[in-house]
């Protein structure tokens, strides 16, 4: 069990879950958006799965970078730059920290991804974007890491906090992205990106026990 295997597990689970949820994610984006979120993500992560064996795995950093580049270059809409940036930022942290990555490094990678998304999308917490699930999830992971919890508990806590936070975006008014054009009508339904984060975290939590058999 190495950091690379864990990274592969995480990325592969994310990719597969995105592909499996194409329709659901699209429906979420239809409520006050334009319905393409599922399609866009799926077209990119489908290529990640397709090219899976060819990604340079010299280090966790090169691996994440290749994934980030694939996403940035093949996903359109807002999601391409946003999700691509997240992976590229995580790769940069991994590169700086070497290949023996622990819980604290994961938190740093997520924090950097969040900052990257904020910069790229000119978005803040509370703007009703995926950040509103990603940040609380990262907080939960950080608490677990600080407490010395085991992996399974940490990922379970991450999933539950992502879910709670994602659902809570229902009460927010969208200030970024296409949903923001509907103004107050964006209140009452959760943000598609935030729910996607929760779904991905839950998939990771569910598959964590079997992760050593995966790929």
């Amino acid at each position: 069990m190495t950091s690379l295997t864990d990274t592969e597990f995480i990325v592969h689970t994310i990719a597969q879950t995105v592909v499996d949820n194409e329709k659901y994610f699209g429906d979420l984006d239809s409520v006050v958006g334009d319905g393409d979120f599922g399609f866009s993500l799926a077209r990119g992560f489908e290529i990640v799965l397709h090219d899976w064996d060819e990604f340079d795995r010299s280090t966790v950093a090169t691996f994440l970078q290749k994934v980030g580049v694939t996403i940035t270059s093949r996903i359109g809409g807002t999601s391409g730059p946003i999700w691509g940036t997240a992976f590229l930022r995580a790769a940069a942290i991994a590169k700086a920290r070497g290949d023996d990555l622990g819980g604290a490094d994961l938190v740093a990678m997520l924090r950097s991804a969040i900052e990257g998304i904020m910069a790229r999308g000119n978005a803040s917490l509370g703007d009703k974007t995926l950040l509103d699930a990603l940040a609380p999830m990262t907080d939960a992971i950080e608490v677990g890491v600080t407490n010395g919890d085991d992996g399974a508990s940490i990922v379970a806590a991450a999933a539950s906090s992502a879910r709670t936070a994602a659902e809570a975006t229902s009460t927010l008014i969208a200030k970024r992205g296409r949903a923001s054009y509907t103004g107050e009508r964006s209140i009452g339904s959760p943000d598609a990106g935030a729910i996607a984060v929760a779904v991905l975290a839950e998939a990771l939590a569910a598959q964590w026990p079997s992760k050593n058999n995966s790929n």
Partner: protein
Amino acid sequence: MKKFVNDPQQFVPEMLKGLALANPDTLRYVPEYNLIMRSSGPRDDKVSIIQGSGSGHEPAHVMAVGPGMLDAACPGDVFAAPPMDYVYETTKLLNSEKGVLLLVNNYTGDRMAFDMAQEMSLADGVNVKTLFIDDDVAVKDSTWTVGRRGVAGNFFVIKAVGAASEAGADLDELMRIGEKVVSVTRSMGLALTACTPPAKGSPLFELGDDEIEIGVGIHGEPGRRRAKIVPANELVDILLEPIVADLPYASGDRVALMVNGLGGTPISELYLVYGIAHEKLAAQGITVARSYVGEYCTSLDMAGASITLVKLDDEIEELLAAPAEIGTRIF
């Protein structure tokens, strides 16, 4: 879903292929980057003009490529900005000594893709500038700091900078002209029905039999508010009043008036709307000097229409009147 479509994932490529087959002498389709360009390629004595955006707005923008209009269009999938790489490759392919102008409707996804592509192209030494278009008055509140959207008004920007670039204007001059046109162009749309993206297969929202969405954009997203259907005279007021008040357009102004169909509304209704809008403007002392009726920037099969006004001065009027030729044509 009932559409002329095979695999929804191939909807955009198959449409682009058809477009190129219908215009074998003038258009080239480059499948690797999903782009449509003039088959004559970039010219070093002319700034190359490129517009990108999601698909689903046809004839915008892939069918606006041709002399006096765009040099290339770089569409994404339906309602999704093109991936940054495609924009970057398109920019390189269209590189000209006089530079490249990227026209971008103001949406988060499009801005990000074009910003990144511009950065990368600049690093490669391409002389590239980006002009953002944001003519939609339906997006009222500046506290949603994403700003206004670009909708059908982009036609006038393309037409004006397209004409000026054919006449030899340089990149700065085109930016000046484009920004001027944007500054005097305002639009507003309403939907009678929702649209159905091929990949989704069902309407993006549900509207009752007597309901309309006011202030929709061009991506099938809901508008600012829902209302009951009213007679055409009142529908025109709903669209025209916020437009006129916004710039504002005033007595004595000469304007171009566009009635743009959103994809599913027949041209008979658009001319009916045009007649009403023309007379309402005349009653306010505003002279319609140029008229545009038809589909310019659509939202797939959405029934509905938008109105756009452009305040004219001699320079803009001349650029709009200059000859142009594109893939969609009647004869």
